């Protein structure tokens, strides 16, 4: 029987090290395109925040920053679980690897649950632009703009979370099938990079949407 390590190397690569490095750089390039995608939205937010600082602070004051802080902690814990999953893969501990992957998924789902609960509370409060938005006063249209940014950016982030949970589920399945070993676990590392990146985006979303108006509550 051929060496399993040899089998894992595609013909365009000289050796497993080169193959792994290519995958890692490819994933980082993809993450850079994601920085540009979210970066455009952050820049748009900055421009509107400069134009309407009072409305954006009032919009932020309507957020429950405690839920935001709890969600940040949940996501940081899920990133920690993901980091431990990569560590288990590097040691070749398959059972621990599967366990930490499942824990990452569970914490990701908990985050989405809290997030969607927040969306529902906003909806009940008539803070859903285009569906039911009722606020009065000279700043109201710009508070609505704050909510447009809020739904767009946290919504895009939530879509990334759902994709990440899908990827992690496939990894749990492949771990069960025995696809990964001490010598070959690049998909775990790459998905880990994606998960940590999505976590990083949320850290900034928490900072710009929840914190500026927290003292006005």
């Amino acid at each position, binding site marked *: 029987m051929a060496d399993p390590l040899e089998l894992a190397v595609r013909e365009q690569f000289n050796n497993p090290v080169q193959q792994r490095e290519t995958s890692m750089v490819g994933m*980082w390039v993809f*993450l850079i395109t994601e920085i540009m995608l979210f970066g455009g939205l952050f820049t748009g937010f900055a421009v509107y925040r400069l134009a309407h600082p009072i409305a954006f602070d009032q919009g932020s004051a309507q957020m429950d*920053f*405690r839920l935001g802080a709890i969600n940040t*902690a949940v996501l940081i814990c899920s990133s920690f679980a993901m980091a*431990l999953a990569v560590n288990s893969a590097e040691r070749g501990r398959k059972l621990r690897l599967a366990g930490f992957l499942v824990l990452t998924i569970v914490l990701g789902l908990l985050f989405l649950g809290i997030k969607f609960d927040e969306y529902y509370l906003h909806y009940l409060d008539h803070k859903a632009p285009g569906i039911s938005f009722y606020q009065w006063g000279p700043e109201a249209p710009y508070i609505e703009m704050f909510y447009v940014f809020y739904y767009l950016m946290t919504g895009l982030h939530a879509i990334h979370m759902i994709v990440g949970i899908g990827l992690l589920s496939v990894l749990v399945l492949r771990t069960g099938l025995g696809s990964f070993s001490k010598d070959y676990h690049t998909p775990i590392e790459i998905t*880990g990079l994606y998960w940590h990146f999505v976590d990083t985006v949320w850290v900034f979303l928490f900072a710009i949407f*929840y914190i500026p108006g927290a*003292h006005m509550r």
Partner: protein
Amino acid sequence: MSQPTVSIKTYTFTWLALLGLTLLTSLIGLIDLGVFNLVAAVLIAAVKASLIATFFMHAFYEAKLVRVVLAGGIIWFLILISLTLGDYLTRGLLPFPGK
């Protein structure tokens, strides 16, 4: 790849630091600092992002090319935001209509 890239101990310290900084962000948010509430929150977020990139994402344990790619991405984003804000922040500084 015989040794894990980053030890569990380092991961644990990173995790605790991130949780601590989240608490710090929330506490600073409760004090009225004017526009510096947002500035402080974004600065702490940047510190958290570098912790995640360095220790969770192994950015400085990988091939040099990874660092070049990451630096390239950050520089392009800084160009995007600094040129845009350079326009919006300086409007109305000159005594000409429309400038």
